[in-house]
């Protein structure tokens, strides 16, 4: 099936085989870790609000603490990624609709504020009403935080990212559900009262399905830009992601009966989500490093 999808060797010319584009300066593990923690925080914020609204206090507590940890952990990786980390706040110098990173910085700032307020209220047991309000607000910033990195990556000249603008956001929001579900699975494996966590199991399963579907969409992307998702370091990582995510989804079916299964499922799903993020970074770098992808995407046919 992949035969006709390969980049034709053709009579493609280049300048000594050198890249036309600059290979992204974004690095491992910073970017994949940020993508993973951001989507985790985004979905957990929604889980926290939904769990509170539906009377699942143990899950709400787990979700709120996790959402805050994810936002700050992600923010730390994001800051460490900068060439001048001390100038991180320059991100909030302007609000620029043409820059998904500017939009994302504002989303992350708002989201971090809201999830920390909700988590602080959860921990201290004070100002419960304000904490709930902040938690509800973070259920709005959450999906934005999970989805915007798809635009962040797609809004580049990198062929494997730009042409995946339909698939990437879904990979990240699907991954957000998987990651949040996995966090619930992990918490349920060690918590005394597990009755709250069935919703997290369902979320993990839905997420695993959506994330796998989006990953499949990347692999089968028409044109040459799908190739880095099938072959090379990106392809290998995406394959690993698929098996881990599907395996974690299957294991989650046994989570109701077995704490071990819940823990194993959480580990597999988390590993799958992380691998998918590494796959995206590696596929993007591969497509920028080889001029054939640029030429093929600009000279169709």
């Amino acid at each position, binding site marked *: 099936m992949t035969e006709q999808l390969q980049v034709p060797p053709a009579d493609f010319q280049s300048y000594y085989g050198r890249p036309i584009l600059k290979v992204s300066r974004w690095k491992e593990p910073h970017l994949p870790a940020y993508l993973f923690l951001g989507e985790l925080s985004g979905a957990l914020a929604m889980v926290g609000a939904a769990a509170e609204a539906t009377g699942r206090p143990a899950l709400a507590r787990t979700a709120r603490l996790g959402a805050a940890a994810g936002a700050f952990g992600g923010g730390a990786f994001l800051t460490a990624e900068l060439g001048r980390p001390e*100038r991180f706040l320059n991100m909030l110098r302007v609000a620029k609709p043409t820059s998904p990173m500017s939009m994302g910085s504002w989303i992350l700032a708002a989201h971090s504020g809201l999830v920390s307020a909700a988590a602080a209220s959860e921990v201290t047991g004070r100002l419960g009403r304000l904490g709930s309000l902040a938690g509800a607000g973070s259920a709005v910033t959450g999906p934005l935080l999970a989805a915007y990195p798809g635009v962040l990556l797609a809004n580049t000249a990198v062929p494997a990212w730009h042409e995946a603008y339909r698939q990437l956001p879904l990979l990240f929001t699907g991954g957000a559900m998987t990651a949040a579900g996995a966090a619930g699975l992990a918490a349920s494996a060690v918590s005394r009262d597990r009755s709250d966590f069935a919703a997290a199991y369902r979320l993990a399963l839905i997420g695993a399905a959506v994330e796998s579907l989006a990953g499949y969409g990347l692999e089968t992307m028409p044109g040459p830009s799908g190739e880095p998702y099938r072959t090379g370091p990106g392809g290998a990582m995406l394959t690993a992601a698929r098996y881990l995510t599907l395996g974690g989804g299957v294991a989650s079916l046994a989570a109701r009966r077995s704490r071990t299964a819940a823990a194993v499922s959480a580990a597999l799903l988390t590993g799958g989500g992380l691998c998918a993020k590494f796959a995206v970074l590696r596929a993007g770098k591969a497509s920028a490093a080889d001029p054939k992808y640029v030429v093929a995407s600009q000279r169709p046919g």
Partner: protein
Amino acid sequence: MTTGTSGNSLYGPLADVSGDAGYADSHPARVGFFTDTSVCIGCKACEVACKEWNGLPDPDFDVLELTGMSYDNTGALGSNSWRHVAFIEQDVISEIADGSATRWLMASDVCKHCTHAACLDVCPTGALVRTEFGTVIVQPDVCNGCAYCVSACPFGVIDRREGDGRAWKCTMCYDRLRGGLEPACAKACPTDSIQFGPLSELREIAQARLADLHAAGHTEARLYGDDAGDGIGGAGAFFLLLDEPEVYGLPPDPVVTTRDLPSMWRWAGAAAAVLAAGVAVAFSGRGRLG
């Protein structure tokens, strides 16, 4: 999607690029480079003059790197090389000698100062700005080194400088322009391969030169980046080439990535809705563990 929306700020021709960026009508005319590679002799005076004037470091010289790419040991444009002379050796059929010969193409590459500059569009800090001359520059005191511009540039021009952490590229010698001088590379070029001036005049000069070359039988000559209807709304620095762009390491048909930004956000919105729906479904089930 390939045509459409012409004349807006994201894509298509733009008559007044500085005006679109908010400068008053009294701003100077848009200036640019016309690099006529057919008269480039590969002397690299442009590279040297640029490095000298802009005080660019040469960090690679602690270990002298020979690329093996003809006389090109610069390799590519980057944070420390704002002009780059490419050397291409081609085997061609010759009417003299024994029938085979080497054709040598030389071309001085530079930042294109796009009408729709992706680096500027995506910069989250406002460090990249449009100048009153219609050029694009980085403000080093603002840049925080996020490197978004590095991946956004369809020409692979701008890069982050190691050890410094900020993004750097050609400024078209903004300081010299402010002082009424032409950029250092154009000043140093001994053959006028690099011509500087108001963009509208350069485009006329280029058309005339192209017609001359075609009349002389050099039908392989073509302009690159001169068309305001192209994917970047036309370049502020454009070229006369003697072969396909990719032979020189240039993208054949670059498009500013932000052209597709509205559809990207729509797809992200749909993905966010999927997330919201997924959470709703997960929490609507009755099943609580007992």
